[in-house]
């Protein structure tokens, strides 16, 4: 079971993705600010979080940095309209799992699962429990 925190100004951007996640037994919670997200990530066990590039109180990049300072094991995904090259420039070094379109859907849910499974295969025996509260 994968538990995902969704962070965006409007919950509606995740409507399709949540449906697709639900079909794959992925559970989600949503919040609208980075500060609330940080609080939730510190109290609850999530496997990853998905954020917009711009939140009301900080950028998605700032949120990722704040999370990594506390728990580098926490995976992230960013909703972004940037080109692949610009996205790489903007987020390199932060270990972002994937770039999603600004309104992700079924295809992205499938791609994310495939990617998570691929990394799990690579990690093999060396993988450690993740997703502990930050």
């Amino acid at each position, binding site marked *: 079971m994968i538990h995902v925190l969704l962070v965006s100004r409007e919950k509606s951007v995740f409507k399709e993705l949540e449906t697709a996640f639900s079909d794959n037994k992925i559970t989600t919670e949503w919040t609208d600010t980075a500060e609330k997200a940080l609080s939730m990530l510190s109290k609850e066990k999530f496997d990853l979080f998905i954020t917009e590039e711009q939140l009301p109180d900080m950028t998605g990049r700032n949120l990722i*940095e704040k999370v*990594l*300072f506390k*728990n*580098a*094991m926490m*995976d992230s995904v960013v909703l972004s309209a940037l080109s692949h090259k610009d996205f*790489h*420039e903007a987020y*390199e*070094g*932060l*270990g*972002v*799992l*994937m770039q999603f379109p600004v309104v992700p859907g079924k295809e992205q849910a499938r791609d994310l699962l495939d*990617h998570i499974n*691929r*990394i799990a295969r*690579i*990690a*093999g025996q*060396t*993988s*450690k429990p*993740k997703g502990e509260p930050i």
Partner: protein
Amino acid sequence: MKSGRIAVPSNGQGGLDGTRAGHFGHCDVFTFIDVEDGEIKEVSVLQNQEHAQGGCMVPVNLLSDNRVTALIVGGIGMRPLMGFKQVGIDVYHDDQRAEIEPVVKDLIAGNLAEITNDQVCGGGGGQV
């Protein structure tokens, strides 16, 4: 450094007389140097694992599981740096020399600086 295990991301077969890889996540092997009482006691090599986008924690866990206490990099991203710090691996920085042995000797002698948070770079890593 008095004792511990140093890891150096390496090209090809690795080894003390080998060369360093510029991107630790994409290196061919990790050269391990075991140090006791300030002396090199043993050198070994560990194959790196496949690299995937966002899979920065794979090498962190790999080195942690192999009892590494110090890592020497030419460049590193923020996420893996935080990961290494959080599992107790000290990360040292040298982006000038390609050879493994001189930077290892400098680390043992206490002449290599730990990388700071503002020295992190992107996924392409620094050049050695």
